[in-house]
């Protein structure tokens, strides 16, 4: 759809990707089923539901931090451009890109004693 100057490139140490333009009403479960084959290759995933409906609709997104940079390339080959079709027959074409911020939550985030 849009050509962006941030295509997947080799020789990189980046591991965090963002899945964009997912259907607004997709559930996390549906998405996770689709990428089941990669289940043991990432250590962090977070899902941002979109907003369905006629007004101010927005796409869903997900962020995934893979264990190895090579996993990213393979995943992008597999899922970039993946088509979702909703019950009305509308198509949504997934975009897989490196997340612009590569930060992921620190595992040791303390429990807040407040």
């Amino acid at each position: 759809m849009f050509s962006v100057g941030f295509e997947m490139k080799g020789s990189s140490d980046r591991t965090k990707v963002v899945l964009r333009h997912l259907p607004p009403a997709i559930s996390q479960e549906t998405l996770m089923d689709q990428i089941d084959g990669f289940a043991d290759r990432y250590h962090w995933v977070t899902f941002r539901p979109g907003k369905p409906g006629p007004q101010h609709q927005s796409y869903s997104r997900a962020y995934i931090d893979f264990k190895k940079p090579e996993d990213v390339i393979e995943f992008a080959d597999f899922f970039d451009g993946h088509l979702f079709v909703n019950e009305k027959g509308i198509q949504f074409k997934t975009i897989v890109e490196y997340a612009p911020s590569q930060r992921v939550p620190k595992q040791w985030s303390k429990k807040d004693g407040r």
Partner: protein
Amino acid sequence: PERSARVAKVRPPLHQYIRKLLFSDLDKTTIEHVLRQLRKLPWSDCEPYLLKCFMKVYKGKYGQIHLIASLTAGLSRYHDEFAVAVVDEVLEEIRVGLELNDYGMQQRRIAHMRFLGELYNYEHVDSSVIFDTLYLILVFGHGTPEQDSLDPPEDCFRIRMITTLLETCGHYFDRGSSKRKLDRFLVHFQRYILSKGALPLDIEFDLQDLFAELRPNMTRYSSVEEANAAVIELEEHEHSVSADKANSEKYSDSENP
């Protein structure tokens, strides 16, 4: 025709409380208190709503945006997942703004640029994120059939986005590799500016202020051709530097078999 009275949105008490803290209580004297109150919230319930409110920085006063960035940094100690989400979310907002280029969203898009800059000032994003964003704004949609709607030739909004971000955090790019990165970016930026032709005066004044503040001695090119030549020179220089580097690596390889 009769119209029913507009029904006011009823928000759960916790959401009302969050809004009160962020949109009316928050100022520089109360920020410690607000941070403490936010930490006391039931996080698993409130996190999505809190994220939504943090993205509404454009509703408050422009001068308050740094307080929201400061809160983000303060919360990251206990809720790093949230702080990471804030950064991802603001970068997504910027990207969606470029994809839609909706006139009605301009105010909030400017606020998000400012927010990103403040997140850098609170050491919550790296300079590489700032520079990637700056270049993204220069090139997004260019070379596609949608170019004229995404970045119309007479539209200077992207210049305002960039000046906003650099006004907020550009003064930190004054040494080392980030200084060189800003020098390089400003050449590309000048080429972009010149491609727009004659600028509205307010934009031109903002640019003059920006250059005076960040790089008072930098050449301001006066034609697209000059700026193009400067970009080409820059790229040739970079090319020769990386070739030198490759050569010296080869050399050291042969030294150490």
